[in-house]
């Protein structure tokens, strides 16, 4: 692999050392299927960290730390398309941000064909919730929290019932996405969202790591080791599936 072809992002692309090649199966593959491209290492993963505010349609003032969606979205396309990357690890520590931008990133991740695993550290609040559940398997650190609360109104508000209706529909987008991509029910998620007495000046709920797991929002509590282990497991499964397909196709052709 040429150096310029190696897809890395800072120091975040992890290459694992090769495991010994089983020469016999390798040769058999070539003889039986005419195929010599067998990847033997555990796989390359790409790590995408989402921090601070999710920046969408508006450029936020410089005191905010932001994750810009116009950069994350093409990166996800490149990760999906790259032959060198086998899986995506999403690390989240976000306070929320633009609904449309967050949902866009979440939908992109949810529709990827490569294995994806997320790990919530510190906090995955507001729009960070749909982003966390978008991956195939999600982890949360026991000390991490997720705040689930209704979308807030800002800017000019017209005092008509339609305003409520509009916001209810905007909220529904988040509720639907979360319910579709995790084990929590729509009703339960809405209940958590509208709970009173938990937040000092807002309606909603703060979930700790194990509570998020209990509600079915997140799959498991864990850390980096667990997230990586799961991701490699998913990569392995994916590879076996692909090899199986190739094998079936080749034997069909032979017949």
């Amino acid at each position, binding site marked *: 692999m040429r150096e310029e072809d190696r897809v890395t*992002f800072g120091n975040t692309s992890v290459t694992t050392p090769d495991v010994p090649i089983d020469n016999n199966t390798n040769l058999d593959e070539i003889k039986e299927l005419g195929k010599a491209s067998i990847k033997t290492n555990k796989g390359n993963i790409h790590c995408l960290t989402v921090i601070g505010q999710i920046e*969408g349609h508006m450029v936020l*003032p410089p005191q905010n730390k932001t994750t810009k969606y116009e*950069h994350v979205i093409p990166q996800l396309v490149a*990760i999906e398309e*790259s032959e060198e990357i086998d899986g995506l690890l999403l690390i989240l520590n976000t*306070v929320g*941000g633009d*609904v449309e931008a*967050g949902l866009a990133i979440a939908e992109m991740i949810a529709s990827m064909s490569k294995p994806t695993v997320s790990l919530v550290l510190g906090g995955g609040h507001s729009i960070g919730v749909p982003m966390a559940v978008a991956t195939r398997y999600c982890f949360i650190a026991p000390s991490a929290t997720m705040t689930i609360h209704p979308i807030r109104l800002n800017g000019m508000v017209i005092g008509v019932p339609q305003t409520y209706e509009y916001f209810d529909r905007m909220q529904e987008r988040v509720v639907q996405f979360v319910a579709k991509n995790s084990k929590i029910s729509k009703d339960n998620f809405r209940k958590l969202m509208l709970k009173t007495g938990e937040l000092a000046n807002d309606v909603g709920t703060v979930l700790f790591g194990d509570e998020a797991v209990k509600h079915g929002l997140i799959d498991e509590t864990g850390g980096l080791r667990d997230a990586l282990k799961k991701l490699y497991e998913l990569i392995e499964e994916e590879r076996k599936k692909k090899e199986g397909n190739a094998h079936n196709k080749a034997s069909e052709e032979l017949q």
Partner: protein
Amino acid sequence: MILYSIVPFEVVFKDYYERDHQSKIEMDYLGEKVVVVPLSNNRYKIERLISTSPKAYLNPKLMPGSIIQGDELS
């Protein structure tokens, strides 16, 4: 834009209208279009990458925040 965040709107958008708008320049760098902010000593900071090539977005040299020397720009 709907902000869905635990950080209050006023905090996120503090000084939004007051801040001085730095002059941003659009330039070519490594064959891609980038929006840069000039720094001192003939250096530039990448603010944004404008490209249709997904791979360009994985290039650390084109990452927003990276500093480039003025003579590397065309």
